[in-house]
């Protein structure tokens, strides 16, 4: 191991914290809490140096529209009242101690939740010099809620998972390339040069992601053979989508494809 790695690797000797360990007794207590919770689950959110996007979504989740209080989930102002601790933010060097203090202040047993991309792993800030990269680096985490930020619905799903009301949907997967696996070519009915021209124009007019979607739809219509005329099919597509912006872009794409076809 080179000296460089020694400095940045987490571990007891390197100045990086090791997560707080939970005793077996603690785990048993937590099981009892989940099974016999006869009252509301109080949530305290711990900001470990986030951008406040996650906080806004947490408060959106307790508004009347999503109303997490239907399930007895209540956001409280002190960690001493909390059953669930919600860690948001990437755990910056300055916010590590306050986060650990609020963890210690919460009564046992407590459930810890990593909230948002930063809480789960450090998110976009994962390789910053002052960032610990995820709340699981400092405290034991029971539930991870990914998202940047998670939507209020995703927040409610995460709370339900933490309280054992709903199951998790995401599963780890590992695909291994099979024999003779081959990527399918797309839009074979359209000449390659024309395809490039259309994709370029659509992306110029509608932005990269939307442009690609529009070019994809248009090339799909252009590439399929049908008894109906091309104009009629495009008109049908535009009527279905009913968007003047799309009509303008598709008109421009039609222009390009007509010119290219005339040249052939």
């Amino acid at each position, binding site marked *: 191991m080179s000296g460089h790695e020694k400095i940045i690797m987490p571990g007891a000797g390197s100045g990086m914290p090791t997560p707080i360990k939970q005793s077996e007794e603690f785990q048993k207590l937590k099981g009892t809490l989940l099974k016999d919770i006869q009252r509301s689950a109080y949530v305290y959110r711990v900001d470990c140096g986030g951008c406040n996007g996650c906080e806004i979504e947490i408060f959106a989740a307790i508004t009347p529209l*999503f109303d997490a209080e239907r399930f007895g989930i209540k956001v409280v102002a002190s960690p001493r009242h909390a059953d669930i601790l919600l860690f948001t933010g990437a755990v910056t060097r300055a916010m590590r101690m306050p986060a650990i203090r609020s963890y210690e202040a919460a009564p046992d047993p407590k459930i810890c939740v990593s909230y948002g991309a930063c809480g789960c792993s450090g998110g976009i800030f994962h390789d910053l010099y002052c960032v610990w990269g995820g709340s699981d680096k400092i405290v034991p985490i029971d*539930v991870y809620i*990914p998202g*940047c930020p998670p939507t209020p619905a995703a927040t409610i799903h995460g709370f339900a*998972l933490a309280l054992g009301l709903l199951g*998790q*949907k995401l599963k780890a997967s590992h695909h291994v*390339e099979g024999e003779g696996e081959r990527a399918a070519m*797309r839009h074979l009915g359209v000449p390659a040069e024309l395809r490039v021209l259309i994709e370029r124009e659509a992306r110029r007019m509608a932005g990269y992601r939307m442009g*690609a979607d529009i070019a994809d739809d248009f090339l799909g219509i252009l590439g399929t053979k049908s008894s109906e005329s091309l104009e009629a099919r495009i008109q049908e597509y535009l009527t279905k989508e009913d968007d003047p912006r799309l009509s303008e872009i598709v008109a421009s794409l039609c222009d390009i494809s007509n010119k290219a076809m005339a040249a052939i």
Partner: protein
Amino acid sequence: MLKLFKTILKTGEATLKYPFAPLPVCDNFRGKPEHKPEQCIACAACAVACPANALTMSTDAEAGTITWSFFVGRCIFCGRCEEVCPTKAIVLSPEFELAVANAADMYQHATFKLAKCAQCGEYFAPKKEVEYTADLLKHAGMTTEAVESISDLLHTCTDCKRKQNVPEADKVEFTRYLKGNEA
């Protein structure tokens, strides 16, 4: 009091039924990126584009494999991977219920085979990517025979290509300008 009840009745219920009923999301909602490994050519365009390094590629030169990995815990759902994917193997789905209790469930992997260079015998590019290139050439107007005739060229690594581009390199007099100065 009665007036208040009337107002309440007229307003109806604002609270959404979720999680007891599925929550409809809007058309362009950016949820979990859905990867179709069959369609993926392991070109790593998504890994280069990913601003949060949620998508990464790792090469195993010993085993001759390249592994695509996705860590949803780091994903910021920006859709850059969908933008750059040349085969539409990765598309953002409306899936938003991503909470997990087990951290290992946040990872997704796909392993692809590498192709060997015809000249030096080293692994140099994903097999599917080389095949896709041949398909693209065919689509661009090259005949199947013509593509087959350049099969060796397609299966040559950049290092070997560069060496081949300098024919009879040992005969080139690199010092002639220095010699000219002396004279």
